[in-house]
């Protein structure tokens, strides 16, 4: 599954980032590396924006970006 399919409160493990290099580098710099744990803290009402926390960062990402992050529960 991908991050954009997760519900609020879901705790997932990152498997792979399928984004272009620059975006993937930014996501990794925010702690979304393969094997890292992430928590979906908030989801906007129309599921357009996700507020995600990793061990070291709290960040918001749009649904198209979240759809490029492969995760497992």
């Amino acid at each position, binding site marked *: 599954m991908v991050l954009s399919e997760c519900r609020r409160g879901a705790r997932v493990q990152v498997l792979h980032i399928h984004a272009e290099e620059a975006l993937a580098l*930014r996501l990794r710099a*925010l702690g979304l590396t393969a094997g890292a744990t992430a928590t979906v803290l908030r989801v906007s009402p129309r599921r357009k924006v996700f*507020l995600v*926390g990793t061990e070291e960062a709290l960040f*918001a990402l749009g649904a198209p970006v979240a759809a490029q992050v492969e995760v497992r529960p």
Partner: protein
Amino acid sequence: MKVLLVGNPNAGKSTLFNALGGGHAKVGNWHGVTVGALEQEMTLGGRRVTLVDLPGMYAEQGMSMEEKAARSYLAAHPASPVIFVCECGALARCLPLFFAVAAGRRAVIALTKAKRFFRSGGRMDLRLLEKRLGVPVFVAEGLKKRALLAQAARVLSAPVVLRREVSLGEAYRPARVGLSRADALFTDARFAFPLFFLLLAAAFFVTFAPHCLGDIMKGGVEALFSEVLAARAAGIRSPVVRSLLAEGLLPSLGGVLSFLPQIALLFFFLILMEESGFLSRLAYLTDGFFAAVGLNGRAVFSLVMGFGCTAAAILTTRGLDDRRVQRRTVACLPYVACSAKLPVYLTLSASFFRNAFLGAALLYALGILMALAVALFTKGREEPPFLLEMAPLQLPRPLFVCKTLLFQIKQFIIKVGTVILAFFLLSWMLSAFDWSFRLCAAEESMLAAICGGLKWLFAPVGMADWRIAYAALSGLVAKENVAGALALLCGGFPYGAASAFAFAVFVLACSPCVSAIAAAARELGWRRALLNAALQTASALLLSYVAYFVWRGGWVLLPVVLAPAAAFLLLRKHHARVHRPRRGDPQKLHR
């Protein structure tokens, strides 16, 4: 020798830059404040160095324009030592960036936001960290200047960094990251939006409403100029000096300076918003809305900055990751009412609204609507990616707020005392003398002869008056000039409500001042910046005619015109172009 401050956005580089060198780099609690390299000469460890504050970067091959600027600077100075500034809580994830930028250089790591890190359960052993990383590490927070300089000076004798992978092990335990109770509230739209509008309304009320703080302070400054100083000027014997002071500088400069208290209050609320970390939450909450008009939540930083200064807001667009979004945001920003337009709005709104507060609020709202309409009109096919780290929520530090506010007030007074004073001196001289340099009425002056042909510009809105046209165009130098020019040449605004509204719409929609045009040129190139300025001024004139027509009773036709236009902009589809090559030449068939 240059010493470079490098690190993630909002890590504290500019704060350290100011603390080490006594500079005035702009600081704010949001990602993307520093947009270009700032340099400052100073003495470090007994040597003269140039301390350089670089824009924040997440990765060596980062995607934003700011990151590219930082990367270029690093590449241009391969031997310069680096002070890597990093939040305590982000140390582990910043190590790849540290080794990427510091490899082959002398480097130290300056850790910031230590109190928050320890309060959230984080732990670290500085000696062990130094041993594992092989570079000096120090906590910058809470150090006095001498101690800070001593720690920073270690970079000059630090070992050269070798690129490697390091595990922090028992030297470091990360803090807990999650939503605090305050953050849970500020990221909930049901709480955050009403709070934001309440704060906005409170800011407007305190600043503009009659008999409130802003209005009372403005009245005091006006009384100083119009009663105390004007009375003294009236007693001057020399007719030239009396004309210069009583008819020239006092009404014009006094007119602009009387708005200083209200401009200061506006900046006060902006600084509170910047410093609190609320802007990041606003960007998260509004991304869906901005995506609908072709921008993303990140644009909220630039739009909010636009309430202070359009030129500064244009520079912050460098933090956007997409060039097309940057161009669209720059095109929208002139419509957001900057603080310099405040004197004009308040002068004019008194003619069409009994309550200046409502008049100013209407003009601000109109500007935002026009900015969004421009964004929607220029919307492209693709949705720009949105990824934004949340700045920490914090109570604004009183000392920081005071220092920043005083700096803004000082900048305003300097601007009034230089650019605006020079403009008014020139305007007075040209409007008080004829070609033989004899004192005369404005209608017989050199300025009337030069600008007489402009009177037709605003004739369709009931103002066939060269003075109004001159005042309008003086805003291209600095927006504050408009109010001052009206005071100098007309003693106020001499026309009715419909003309005042039309003129206000022109000021709202026309090209920004030369500083903003220059800022746009730095980002987009001169050709595009000048084209934008010309289109904005031309469309502003047409919009002022429409505004006059609407005010005089044409509003009934507005829904007939606006509804189809809005439907087209919101519902239009962008069709892919289909090309069929003919004899090797691609031919566009249809959209």
